[in-house]
């Protein structure tokens, strides 16, 4: 299965984008398969969302890709428009008519690349459009579904596909010189903290973002240190270590399920009462909200984001914090946690306990703009120029707070901001809230 690229012709005024393809299928078959996958994989809720759209265009005003470029092709609901047509033709109540009279035009193979560009490169699945839609359509849910159809047709971006596949097969999204298990132990040694690993029994099971292992080892150590401070029976499991889920990004549902299962099985194996998701936004969505659906039954343990867990411990009086000496700080709400996950107060509770002088961003909490890297966009190389454009206003918002310290609670967001820092020579560094907590344990 080689990753290929098809160059597509210019469509209308829109610059045609090259598409990554998987498998050996002709384009027409791919189109058919994408459409069918979408049309056949829906329920009443999806139908309701598709039927409701009145083409008011208001969702464009929520999307940082549109706002930055003013290019109408980035209108969120337009990204699923071909699929909406497919639904109408294949599965809607009037499918018969549409088919009979050929009312809904089939999507051409020439547009494949554009879809990939629109659904993957220029959508963080941040869900801001779902909050603005006057018809109450959850546009990001439709995009998630469209991504799955693209995957089914072998039309996922090469980077996401490769990482998802790697993770499904090996448990980690890419190969590393030494296994993550050993890397973790090395981090523990370096930061003089014990990394609990493969304990047969634990109240709390931990996992770790690959991003942290590779780029922010201090955050890994911080997690271990905080858990140690709380003296809770906890453990990492070497068979279910990585928090991320590239299956979710790439749209490979089965892979997403397999990857989630690794963690679920390990949590069951160590009889964990809860699974604490580290500072990783989409891992939270995948585990907290989607894992049970893919698993087929409710999970027999709680799934909490680390900030949620720590806020709970704080309220229970178990977590003691010193006042941090950080001056004015500002905080970026990761979309998957706040807008799509409901984790809104926990990080603020922690920052309050740390006595931080929090200067909120202009658009905060549920209205926070995405960092631009979510939904796997950070991993798609060709998407970088567009991503930089889309995040400029976000960086400006951070600057406008005048805060010296910039915090967040998602390592992907953090990596995206670090990448931007290098690109723009930005004078700020994103910091981990967890690290700040670990540094100020009372």
């Amino acid at each position, binding site marked *: 299965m080689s990753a290929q690229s098809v160059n597509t012709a210019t469509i209308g005024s829109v610059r045609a984008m090259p598409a990554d393809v998987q498998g050996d299928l002709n384009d027409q078959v791919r189109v058919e398969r994408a459409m069918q996958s979408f049309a056949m994989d*829906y*329920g*009443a*809720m999806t*139908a*309701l969302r598709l*039927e*409701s*759209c*009145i*083409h*008011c*265009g*208001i969702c*464009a*005003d*929520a999307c940082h890709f*549109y*706002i930055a470029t*003013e290019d*109408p*092709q980035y*209108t969120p*609901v*337009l990204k699923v*428009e071909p699929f909406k047509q497919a639904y109408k033709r294949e599965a*809607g*109540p*009037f499918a018969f008519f549409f088919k009979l009279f050929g009312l809904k035009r089939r999507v051409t193979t020439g547009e494949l690349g554009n879809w990939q560009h629109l659904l993957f490169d220029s959508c963080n699945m941040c869900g801001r459009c*779902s*909050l*603005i*839609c*006057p*018809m*109450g*359509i*959850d546009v990001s849910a439709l995009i998630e579904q469209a991504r799955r159809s693209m995957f089914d047709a072998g039309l996922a971006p090469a980077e996401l596909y490769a990482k998802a596949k790697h993770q499904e097969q090996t448990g980690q999204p890419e190969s590393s010189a030494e296994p993550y298990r050993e890397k973790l132990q090395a981090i523990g040694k370096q930061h003089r903290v014990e990394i609990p690993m493969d304990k047969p029994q634990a109240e709390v099971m931990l996992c770790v973002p690959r991003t942290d292992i590779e780029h922010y080892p201090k955050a890994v150590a911080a997690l271990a240190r905080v858990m140690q401070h709380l003296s809770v029976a906890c453990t990492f499991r070497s068979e279910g270590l990585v928090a991320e889920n590239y299956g979710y990004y790439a749209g490979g549902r089965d892979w997403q399920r397999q990857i989630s299962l690794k963690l679920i099985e390990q949590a069951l194996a160590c009889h964990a009462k809860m699974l604490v998701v580290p500072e990783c936004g989409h891992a939270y969505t995948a585990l*907290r*909200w*989607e*894992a*049970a*659906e893919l698993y*087929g*039954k*409710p*999970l027999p343990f*709680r*799934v909490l984001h680390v900030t949620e867990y720590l806020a709970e411990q704080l309220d229970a009086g178990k977590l003691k914090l010193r006042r941090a000496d950080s001056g004015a700080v500002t905080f970026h709400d990761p979309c998957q946690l*706040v*807008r*799509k*996950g*409901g*984790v*809104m107060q926990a990080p603020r509770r922690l920052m309050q306990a740390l006595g931080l002088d929090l200067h909120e961003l202009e*658009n905060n909490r*549920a*209205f926070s703009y995405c960092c631009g890297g979510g939904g796997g966009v950070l991993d798609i190389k060709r998407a970088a120029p567009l991503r930089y454009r889309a995040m400029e206003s976000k960086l400006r918002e951070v600057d406008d707070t005048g805060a010296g310290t910039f915090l967040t609670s998602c390592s992907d967001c953090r990596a995206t901001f670090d990448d931007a820092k290098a690109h723009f020579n930005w004078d700020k560094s994103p910091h981990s809230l967890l690290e700040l907590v670990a540094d100020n344990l009372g």
Partner: protein
Amino acid sequence: MELLEFARGPALKVALAVFCFGVSWRLVGTILLRYHRHLSVPRVGFFKSAMLGLLVGGSRSWPHPQFIKRTGYGEALGYSYHIGLFIVILFFAPHVLFIKSLFGVSWPVLSSSIITIIAVLTFTLLLAVLFRRLTYSVLRKLSNFDDYFSWFVTTLVIVTGLMATAHFGARYETLMAWHILSFDLLLIWYPFGKLMHAFYIFPSRMINGYFLARKGAPS
């Protein structure tokens, strides 16, 4: 048979039948699709989430303050012509009588001069809406036949209605016939285009509101 009789009689009957047939087909055909049990443990219980969901049915009519700066104009335009349409449809005496003849219920009406002013305003707003659809790049790219045709049938009813009240362009009964025929056309088109949003808007908002609420996310 005169045109007016045709419009009020057989044409109206067929249009109403098509409307009821099409609307129930489309609604039932959507509602009876598969439902998935949501297995993740909700952050907010079912009852409270459902209540919050119901609330979103109304609260989405007013944009979140964070969005108003960008969406205010478009939303004000959109909602105001809807309000105009509702007033004209529901509070013009002949319309109330029409509704009474179908359903047997009636209510107080507004004076014709007020209705005429509102109808003219609504028509102006509809023109502005079309202008925006044609000039705003997002809308132009998004729009298809459904959007323009639905605009057309809606505006046609307003225009013929205004012509009939102003006795402009033809004899009154001819204008009335056009007005009713254009309404018949709207009824027939209704189930097949985006005009159906009148039926979908509240369930759609409420369901989105419910799903956000059960995750504890703002809606």
